């Protein structure tokens, strides 16, 4: 029987902040944006804030209404990333088969490692302790016969929980749970199920597979199995990202090459910072163009050495655009980078000050979680020259 463990850091970003700033402990901390932020959303909030009904993915403005005395923090993603890396290192000590699903949670396939511990309880406690000793943060851990059960289990007692569900306990344990606990059941499906009087997992089990498949298609089939605690998905160790990219469809087709160039510069800035945050470099740069008639082309260039600076990527992307733009108007433009490597070859002829500048810009743009500083090429050109002033 498989032994799958799910490790989920408790309100990760908020806990990191509370750890580093003692004055925040015991207070409702909401990470995601300044209080005034109109468009920000909550990325994490402390358990103290959850009591007020604040939860992740909620607009900041709404969180302010629910929890007016909350402490709103934009968040320091570089720091979270660093803590996450330390945690990932520990997790990898426990099992060679690890699937990270986000910055703060991972599945471990512990099958075959059971004999290293006195019990599954001991296994769960060991990893919790190792994480706490290393980063002074608590994790909730769930252990079960598959990913579905392990994830539900880690969520069962939060924070700082450890829940172990033995294979023979699965069915009884699941029975009273609301159907929306099942992965993939959102509000919409839950409503549909409710209309058939299906509210708990036990309710769901009463319906034959054919009924569910007929009405919900492929999802019906998986619901039928999950309701019985059956989940055959394997823990898939992270395969390194093979490519990254960003594209945008214009609200109106574009005929102005300057506008294309500027859009490309902005897309490059997004992909560039993503590459650098992951400490990756790319050897192949591609652009994608979709013309007004929906013909789509993509063109790429491979470089002798990998790069990750916006300037470097933009230089290639712009050349690709210049050489391959065959038609106007353009509907969509995109930039992709691939052949990713975990090292960057230094260049003899690059001014080291440029790298410092990039680091500084990245830090500013990450700190505020939105672009606060950009290159001139990312800005729209004025339609007409400024009055009265000669360009200098």
């Amino acid at each position, binding site marked *: 029987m498989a032994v799958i463990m799910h490790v989920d850091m408790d309100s990760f970003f908020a806990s990191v902040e509370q750890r580093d700033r003692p004055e925040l402990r015991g207070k409702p901390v909401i990470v995601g944006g300044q209080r005034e932020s109109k468009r920000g959303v909550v990325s994490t909030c402390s358990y103290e804030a959850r009591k007020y009904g604040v939860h992740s993915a909620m607009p900041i403005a709404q969180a302010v209404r629910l929890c007016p005395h909350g402490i709103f923090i934009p968040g320091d993603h570089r720091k979270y990333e660093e803590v996450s890396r330390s945690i990932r290192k520990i997790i990898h000590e426990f099992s060679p088969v690890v699937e990270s699903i986000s910055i703060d949670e991972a599945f471990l396939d512990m099958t075959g490692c059971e004999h290293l511990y006195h019990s599954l309880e001991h296994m769960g406690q060991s990893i919790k302790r190792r994480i706490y000793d290393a980063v002074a943060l608590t994790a909730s851990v769930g252990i079960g016969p598959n990913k579905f059960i392990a994830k539900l289990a880690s969520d069962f007692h939060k924070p700082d929980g450890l829940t172990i569900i033995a294979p023979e306990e699965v069915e009884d344990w699941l029975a009273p749970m609301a159907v929306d606990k099942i992965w993939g059941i959102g509000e919409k499906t839950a409503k549909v199920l409710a209309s058939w009087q299906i509210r708990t997992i036990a309710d769901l089990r009463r319906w034959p597979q054919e009924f569910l498949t007929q009405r919900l298609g492929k999802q019906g089939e998986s619901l039928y199995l999950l309701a019985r605690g059956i989940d055959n998905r394997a823990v898939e160790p992270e395969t*390194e990202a093979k490519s990254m990219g960003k594209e945008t469809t214009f609200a109106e087709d574009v005929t102005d090459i300057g506008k294309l160039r500027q859009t490309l510069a902005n897309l490059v800035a997004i992909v560039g910072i993503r590459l650098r945050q992951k*400490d990756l470099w790319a050897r192949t740069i591609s652009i994608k163009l979709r013309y007004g008639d929906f013909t789509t082309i993509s063109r790429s260039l491979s*470089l*002798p*050495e990998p790069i990750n600076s916006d300037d470097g990527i933009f230089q290639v992307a712009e050349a690709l655009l210049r050489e391959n733009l065959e038609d106007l108007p353009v509907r969509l433009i995109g930039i992709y980078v691939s052949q990713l*490597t*975990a*090292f*960057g*070859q*230094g*260049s*003899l*002829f*690059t001014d*080291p000050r440029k790298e410092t500048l990039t680091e500084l810009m990245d830090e500013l743009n990450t700190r505020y979680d939105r672009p606060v500083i950009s290159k001139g090429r990312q800005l729209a050109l004025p339609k007409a020259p400024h009055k009265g002033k000669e360009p200098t």
Partner: protein
Amino acid sequence: MQFTGMQGELLQCLQMVERAVATRDPSEELTGVYLEWSNEKLTVRATDMEIGIEAYGQVQSSESGSAVLEGKFFVPLVRRLPPGEVVVKLIEEQQMLEIKAGTGSFRLQTMAVEDFPTIGSDTKEPKATLPSGLLARMIRQTVYATRKDQGHSAFTGILMECSSGELRLVATDSSRLCFNRQSLAGGEDFKIIVPSRTCTELLRILPTDTESTVEISLVGNQVLFSLDNVILISRLLEGQYPDYTRVIPSSTEAEIVAPCSDLAAALERANLMGKKGPAIVTFDLEEGVLRLQSRDVELGESEETLVVEQQGPKVRSSFQARFILEMLKTVTSEKISFGLSNGLNPGIIRPADSQDYLYVIMPVRTV
């Protein structure tokens, strides 16, 4: 119109020019090899307009003549002929060339002879004359650092610069830079960028004996290398060569001296740790012990230590193993000196007994 020569001599001429035969030519005439014989002299020529090579051999001929033959067929044929005498006869009215050797007889269709370009006709005084073995060595010690991608940037060629009584060859792909100099008597000043392909072809034709000399002359936007029995002409690369003097560090934080072969052998092993990309090797130097580490997520890792002569504090820096190996393979001295600095500052490798061959290498940034 015929000539008689030895298969070995004929083949030698053809092999020299072979690589200049155009493989793709819309008008097709450049896919041919030009032969001309008169006064016991055979001239063989091929050009693809980027480079042209002309080689000379000895034959017996009663009457001079010329012909152009499809390179792709003629060269392999001569290569396969038995050693000994070859009789070549032009049958003009049929536009055929008859080749007789051993018991075989071959008739090949000839191509138009009139339009075949001449090369290096208006040669000027040589700018420099030097032992061909020396030029060969200097090229071998630089050409590997040229940029390999297609294109005509200055980085795809070797800078050949002659001034202040020395000849300097420089190559860089911006990750590393080779610098090689030799004092040279009586040269004129010049500064040219020679395509790396030309340099590779030169290596094939430059004799390595100590007697032969090679003359370098400039003809318009072309460079001409002349030897006794062969000349090579090549287009030059245009554009500005970067100021290389700026990137050669005057000093490094630490310096080691180590046996070249030991370091190369260790790096060859470390270089295996790269499944999908190049192997990265970290140099960890402390108190005369050099620790080389490399790691590949999918393959595993390697670590080995070398005892070296060290000057300076402890340093740590990572490089692409291949870059260092390529340089070490061209070193003839027993020991090398490797100047290292921490972080992203360039390292500098040279033969321990020479300041004339320098290799500047940029580290890699790793996580």
